[in-house]
């Protein structure tokens, strides 16, 4: 039984990593097999916190997807991006820096794939006006979205999974992840001229074309924008006030989504347009397969093996998690990676007496998985989506071009993370 569960799991992961078959199909098929052969039953799948579908994650994603669907209808994102490009006075480097910052901030509030889908068309527009190749800008924005998304609980799906498993709050992420993300972003922006050398030559006459863009026209429904703004502020306030209100983020997101649906009066197709049913089902399948591994005790064994390898040394464990997470989640999608590692890290963390250092294990996992997503063109969903957009619009990004630059960015961000984790949780303990 255990061997079968492991076999299903491994095969599923290989298929997901190879990207040959639709990954939702693979995850659900794997789940169907472990359920059909009786490794887990309906109680374990639907009602167990340890082995079942993590409903908090599913509904937080669902709620935020609806909120984003409504927000997209307002055009505010396009407004901000074009306004930023105009502020750069047509200098391509400054435009890249500003768009990268817009992307990073947006990515902290919304999920990375949505951010990429929002920033890509307006980037293509600006580059088209300037008659320069958009590919470097798109690549830089993907990097920024993976980095920026690491700073909040809702910014990146791995964080949502970790938060649920480790009972970490929105504020925990702000306090522990935001500082290192800010540091990495500053360094990343400083690196832009070197990483994307040669991408910034522009004919000065084209600058007027960018300055002539009318960003106000992007906002077609100011009333809706105000409603969205109010609801978003309330939602994030509720995230932050979790300690006082005791309402879980998933519930907050669902409530926010519900309010927006009612007050926006949008058509169902509009407010559901951003809900990625396939992604949600992918998570369901993944949770069931990982749950089967937990039930059969495989996770326990792996955790014990890891503890033996590190001798229970907290610093070594933290660095090991960081060092393994980055390359692995750079190659296989960071979501399945984190879904699998979460129960293992949970066991490891339980064995570390100092609470701050025990928590550092989770930050190491989050940083490794989030930043590691930049390593290759398939390391994160945002990367895949962006490459798809680029391919369709005559600005193709080659796998190796992305990976070459991604390797540099990932190495720098992981190095900074290692120093941060060491200094914050071990030197100044």
């Amino acid at each position, binding site marked *: 039984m255990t061997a079968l569960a492991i076999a299903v799991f491994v095969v599923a992961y290989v298929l997901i990593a190879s990207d040959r078959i639709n990954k939702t199909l693979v995850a659900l098929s794997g789940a169907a097999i472990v359920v059909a052969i009786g490794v887990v039953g309906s109680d374990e799948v639907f009602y167990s916190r340890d082995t079942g579908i993590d409903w908090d994650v599913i509904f937080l994603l669902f709620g935020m997807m609806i909120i984003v669907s409504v927000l997209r209808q307002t*055009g505010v994102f*396009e407004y901000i991006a*074009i306004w930023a490009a105009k502020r750069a006075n047509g200098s391509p480097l400054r435009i890249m820096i500003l768009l990268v910052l817009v992307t990073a901030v947006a990515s902290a509030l919304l999920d990375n794939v949505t951010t990429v889908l*929002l920033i*890509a*068309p*307006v980037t*293509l*527009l600006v580059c*088209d*006006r300037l008659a320069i190749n958009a590919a470097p800008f798109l690549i830089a924005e993907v990097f920024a979205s993976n980095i920026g998304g690491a700073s909040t609980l809702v910014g990146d799906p791995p964080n949502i999974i970790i938060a649920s498993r480790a009972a970490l709050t929105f504020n925990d992420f702000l306090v522990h992840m935001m500082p290192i993300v800010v540091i990495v972003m500053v360094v990343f922006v400083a690196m832009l001229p070197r990483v994307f050398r040669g991408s910034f030559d522009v004919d000065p006459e084209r600058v007027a*074309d960018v300055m*002539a*863009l*009318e*960003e106000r*026209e*992007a*906002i*077609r429904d100011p009333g809706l924008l105000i409603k969205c703004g109010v609801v978003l502020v309330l939602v994030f306030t509720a995230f932050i006030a979790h300690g006082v209100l005791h309402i879980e983020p998933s519930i907050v997101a669902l409530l926010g989504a519900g309010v927006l649906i009612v007050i926006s009066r949008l058509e169902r197709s509009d407010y559901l347009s951003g809900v990625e049913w396939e992604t949600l089902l992918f998570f369901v399948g993944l949770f069931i397969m990982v749950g089967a591994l937990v039930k059969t005790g495989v996770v326990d064994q792996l955790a014990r093996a890891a503890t033996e390898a590190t001798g229970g040394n907290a610093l070594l464990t933290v660095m090991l998690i960081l060092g393994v997470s980055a390359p692995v989640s750079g190659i296989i999608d960071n979501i399945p990676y984190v879904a699998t590692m979460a129960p293992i890290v949970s066991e490891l963390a339980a064995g570390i007496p100092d609470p701050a250092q025990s928590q550092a294990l989770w930050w190491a996992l989050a940083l490794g998985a989030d930043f590691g997503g930049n390593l290759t063109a398939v390391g994160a969903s945002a990367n895949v989506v962006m490459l798809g*957009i680029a391919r*369709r*619009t005559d600005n193709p990004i080659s796998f190796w071009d992305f990976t070459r630059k991604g390797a540099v960015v990932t190495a720098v961000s992981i190095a900074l993370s290692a120093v941060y984790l060491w200094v914050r949780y071990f030197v100044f303990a």
Partner: protein
Amino acid sequence: MHAEEIAEDFPVVTIDSNALDAARMLAEHRLPGIVVTDSSGKPYAVLPASQVVRFIVPQYVQDDPALAGVLNESMADRAAEKLGRKTVRDVLPEHLVNVPAAHADDTIIEVAALMARLRSPLIAVMKDGKLHGVITASRLLAAALKH
């Protein structure tokens, strides 16, 4: 009446022909759409005029309609400039419905139902696996109202 009796000859463009020429043909003859054939002459797509209009809409505006108003008037006026360098294949919409084709012996109702379901103002008529002609909505109505 059968489809083959109502069908007319219709200007066609091949998929590798110049997109600007195709758009120009539609504009000059005020056609309700164009028929695109592959290099062997087999119908590849039937595009209503509203889809041919897409040729001049940049891809990023098609992906993000909020950007449509952002381009100022002079940019909008020059929208068709890039078309000259593209072929029809380059600008065909991604989600192409299978060629809405009626059979030569279909009745007026069958053709009308097909047209209505696909919301297409023109339908290709196939006979013996080859393009026999095209029926436009106005021609179909004229035939139907004659009785």
